[in-house]
């Protein structure tokens, strides 16, 4: 391929993949709204709509600089630009990156196509993570509190953890600095995107409390079925389509021969996840629950995201199967044992399966890819292929996510509760957020 053609092709690939990921926003809106009740449909749709512009503006202004400001270049997309800066801690003779401190508001890179394409691609990922809590916290969250959350997520929470894994931060240098495999490896975001979203959703749900009437005084759980299952099924399929951009686009290179494997692993894992969830539910409650099959499919997608370029197709099926069962078990655990009310199953799908996905890479990466990843020689191998250090690095990354993201987001929601208030009044919840919060019903009331 001629020299000048390759970067252009790669650039176009990353942009097209970014466009696909943007379409996932529509998928999330449909899935979440379908799984919630009719009286809150406008509110749920509105959160999925508004998180997008909030995220774009917040990430443009601050988030991108914090997350990727420390990177000089993306070799597949074009030559390096000057002015990158990563704030780091010197410890034990090594440098541990904490956050980027350049490229804010794209001022210094406004003419660099590689940085601009990466901004577009990264902001779509950020929006995916930011959308996840809107499902778990739906039907009771004050809209104004949600707007504050949108800026918090896009300017601070997501960019910081993202920097540690993808921006040259301390988790990515665990290999070089501490000898743990290739550092924390996450190909397309099981931990960076989905765990972050899922753990934030958990913290937010704990702060908000369950919907009125969900858990009765006698300890029983009242089912609150969504109002439009066909909408959720359509949303699920849109997400599965957009995921090709998510995973295959993360090669950042159209000439990377792994694209085919990445795409194949993505469909295999999601299919295995959907079937595992379907049959598991069918076997236990005697009905082939479509909602659970949707969440199983999404769980399979989330779980393969970290390792889609590093594992064989058979391993992708295994990862998806585990994810499908994990989704069902986690939904039951949260609802029946812990009494945590997540209307759409976002914590199970993104939090639990994201965790599993990040760990699965540390088990099943087969050593056929990732030569020189994060500056460490040789390919990425999981525990079953001879590198226990990689699993350790994955565990450190997962733990860091749980501790940092949970603590920070819980602190944020706690603070919001004190100074602003997170939750609508009982009356608003009873009559629907559409009527009192939004002033517009989604459907005519009878």
């Amino acid at each position, binding site marked *: 391929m001629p020299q000048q053609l390759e970067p252009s092709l790669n650039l176009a690939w990353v942009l097209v993949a970014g466009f696909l990921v943007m379409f996932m926003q529509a998928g999330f809106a449909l899935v979440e709204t379908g799984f919630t009740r009719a009286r809150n449909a406008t509110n749920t749709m509105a959160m999925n709509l508004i998180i997008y512009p909030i995220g774009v503006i917040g990430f443009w202004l601050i988030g991108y600089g914090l997350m990727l400001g420390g*990177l000089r270049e993306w070799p597949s997309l074009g030559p390096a630009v000057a002015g990158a800066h990563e704030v780091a801690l010197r410890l034990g003779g090594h440098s541990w990156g904490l956050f980027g401190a350049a490229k804010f508001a794209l001022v210094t890179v406004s003419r660099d196509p590689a940085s601009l394409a990466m901004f577009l691609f990264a902001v779509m990922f950020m929006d995916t993570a930011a959308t996840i809590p809107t499902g778990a916290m739906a039907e009771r969250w004050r809209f104004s509190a949600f707007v504050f959350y949108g800026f918090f997520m896009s300017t601070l929470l997501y960019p910081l953890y993202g920097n540690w894994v993808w921006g040259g931060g301390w988790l990515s240098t665990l290999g070089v600095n501490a000898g743990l495999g290739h550092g924390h490896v996450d190909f397309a975001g099981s931990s960076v995107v989905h765990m972050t979203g899922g753990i934030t959703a958990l913290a937010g749900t704990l702060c908000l409390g369950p919907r009125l009437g969900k858990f009765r005084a006698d300890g*029983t759980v009242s*089912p609150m079925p969504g109002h439009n299952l066909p909408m959720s099924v359509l949303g699920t399929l849109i997400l599965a389509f957009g995921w090709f951009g998510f995973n295959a686009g993360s090669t950042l290179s159209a000439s990377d021969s792994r694209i085919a494997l990445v795409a194949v692993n993505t469909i295999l894992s999601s299919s295995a996840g959907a079937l595992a969830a379907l049959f598991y539910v069918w076997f236990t409650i*005697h009905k082939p629950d479509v909602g659970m099959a949707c969440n199983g499919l999404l769980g399979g997608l989330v779980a393969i995201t970290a390792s889609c370029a590093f594992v064989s197709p*058979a391993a992708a099926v295994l990862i998806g*199967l585990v994810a499908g069962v994990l989704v069902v078990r986690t939904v039951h655990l949260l609802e029946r044992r812990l009494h945590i009310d997540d209307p759409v199953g976002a914590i199970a799908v993104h939090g639990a399966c994201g965790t599993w996905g990040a760990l699965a890479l540390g088990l099943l990466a*087969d050593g056929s890819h990732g*030569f020189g990843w994060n500056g460490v020689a040789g*390919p990425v191998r999981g525990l079953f292929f001879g590198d226990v250090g990689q699993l350790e690095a994955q565990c450190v990354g997962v733990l860091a996510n749980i501790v940092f993201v949970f603590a920070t987001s819980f602190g944020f929601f706690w603070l919001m509760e004190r100074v602003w208030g997170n939750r609508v009044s009982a009356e608003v919840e009873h009559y629907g957020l559409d009527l009192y919060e939004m002033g517009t019903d989604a459907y005519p009331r009878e």
Partner: protein
Amino acid sequence: MHDPVVGDRLDQYELTQLLARSGMASIFKAIDLESQQSVALKIPHIQYESDVVFSERFRREQEVGQRLTHPNLVKVLAPREKSRMYMAMEYVEGKSLRALMSDKHPLSTEKALDIARQVCDALVYLHAEGVIHRDIKPENILLTASGLVKILDFGIALFESERRLTWMGLSSAVGTPDYMAPEQIRGRRGDPRTDVYAVGMMLYEMLTCNLPYESPNSRALLRAKTSDEPRPPSYYVPGFDPSLEAIILKAIEVSPRDRYPTAATFLADLKDPSAVLPRDPAIAATRRRAGARVWRRFVLSAAIAAVLATLASLIWLSAHDSPRPVHPQATPRER
């Protein structure tokens, strides 16, 4: 055309009193002007006349009713001419079993057994005629002052040969799932054992004022009914007659296989409860089902192990048999 009111004339009948009004139909007491006898007319609300599913159900109820003659079945009459959709039935002076049980005291054993026997007797006749009632519940059992039982409502009754309508499609009309048998919940059409189950549930309720499954919501109730063992009557009434308990538990077994195969065998035990041996919790159906469960669990575990082993070997083969690039390229991605 309008919804009829008291005082209206409908063919040979004159409406004299509104007896009940539900979401779908009104039931009037009326005088047959030809014979001067009291009758009951069930008249659907006007908007349902054009509803295909409803009118099919209504037509079936009438057709089934007219074919049957038994002292314990409400007789469906055949008017000379009919100017609109309605059903004429014999008028029964009495109250429903639901009303009888509403004061939350168990009925006496003799009274409860008598009612169950009469219902069973009617079922023996119905089943012999090839009809499954499928909706036996206290609301559909009428009792006259002399203690005679009359079964009402053949709305979802089926001739065994007719095509299947699942409960899902009729759920709005079927209402409470308390008396619905597990196989109906799973969408099967049901057979004589389905009616046996419902009578067993009614007998249970008459004697204990409770039902064996309790759940705050109907979805969980449906799930429990298809998978859990029922609570024995002695849970609610300490010292409950063990023979009677054995009869009831056999009638409400989760699996139709384990129930009385026919209403006649059920009736035989109801006629002489003391001849039935008390249930030994360690034997018979329970153990058979436990055995089936163990077997199912074993098959499932084996299947899971086989899938995992297959995947493990496929993963191993992928790693060792796939040709590798001779000179692995440096990964072009640097994040």
